[in-house]
């Protein structure tokens, strides 16, 4: 029992930087949704069922400009396609947990929850208790902050002055540092980072992260074979 409790506390603790990042971003999305004419209930429903930051921003923007359902659904699919890489990367680590939990746990995969859990999974085997604690803590903070943002609208103070916009980049930075095991990984990190910026300017439609990741990881495979 103690062990389960420890895993839960660990999962919740690891979610804290994600929560700090999600709350201001969730507020911002909620405010934007209210401007686009969505009610807090509609906002909450979208966050509950979709749970994907950038796709929701785009969807709210498209809804606000009166775009019809099919293009919104297609855009959501394309923007969220990168999750299949996260899902595939976690698959070997999911071998240790009960198979019937996998379809439930994988619902909660986001950039942030993936980044934290893959780092922890590479350290040691993790139980479903850890995944549920980490993922549901992050998920709840997202759902609630978007609803509050939509309900309170412009009453939300400017969180930028308080430095909250560094929460997610700061977390990514620390997690990236944990990945830099040798020069090969440093090189892949630099290639992927600059490719991501390059694609951001050259290819419209949020393809930069997925393209940069695939190309950089393929280069990683090639340079591993050279040695």
């Amino acid at each position, binding site marked *: 029992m103690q062990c389960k409790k420890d895993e839960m506390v660990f999962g919740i603790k690891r979610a804290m930087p994600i929560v700090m990042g999600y709350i201001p971003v969730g507020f911002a999305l909620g405010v934007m949704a209210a401007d686009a004419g969505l009610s807090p209930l509609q906002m909450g429903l979208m966050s509950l069922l979709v749970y994907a930051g950038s796709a929701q921003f785009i969807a709210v923007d498209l809804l606000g400009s009166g775009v019809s359902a099919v293009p919104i659904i297609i855009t959501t699919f394309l923007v*969220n396609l990168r999750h*299949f890489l996260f899902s595939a990367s976690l698959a070997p680590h999911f071998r240790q947990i009960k*198979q019937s939990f996998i379809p439930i746990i994988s619902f909660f995969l986001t950039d942030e929850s993936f980044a934290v859990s893959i780092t922890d999974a590479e350290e040691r085997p993790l139980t479903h208790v850890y995944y549920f604690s980490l993922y549901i803590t992050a998920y709840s903070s997202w759902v609630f902050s978007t609803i509050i943002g939509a309900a309170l609208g412009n009453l939300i103070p400017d969180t930028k002055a308080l430095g909250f916009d*560094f929460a997610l980049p700061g977390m990514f930075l620390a*997690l990236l540092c944990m990945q830099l095991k040798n020069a090969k990984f440093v090189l892949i990190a630099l290639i992927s980072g600059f490719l991501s910026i390059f694609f951001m300017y050259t290819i419209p439609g949020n393809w930069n992260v997925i393209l940069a990741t695939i190309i950089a990881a393929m280069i990683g495979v090639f340079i591993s074979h050279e040695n």
Partner: protein
Amino acid sequence: MKIDLNYIYLVLAMGLVTYLPRMLPATLLSKQKIPEVFVKFLSFVPTAVLSALLFPGVLTVENKLNIGISNPLFVAAVLTFPLAYKTKNMFATVLLGMGIVILHNIFV
């Protein structure tokens, strides 16, 4: 509060197309052996994803490249890097960086 049925169908569809790529690889691949080359590929994915998310976040401001002292997130990332690299502590990195951003907003 009334919710339009069309809106419910819309978010259900958005949820489904988001859920499938999240769920299918984990569910299918966790049961079988993954080819060696794909395992190698996946070993680089966390590094590549983190970098692909981090770089645009701290090197651009409102979609414009800004690698300089006027960009608070860039300054915070550079200054917290030694701490992040040495301690690998997410929370300390985030808190120090937020402090730097606050100071930057006040003084720069």
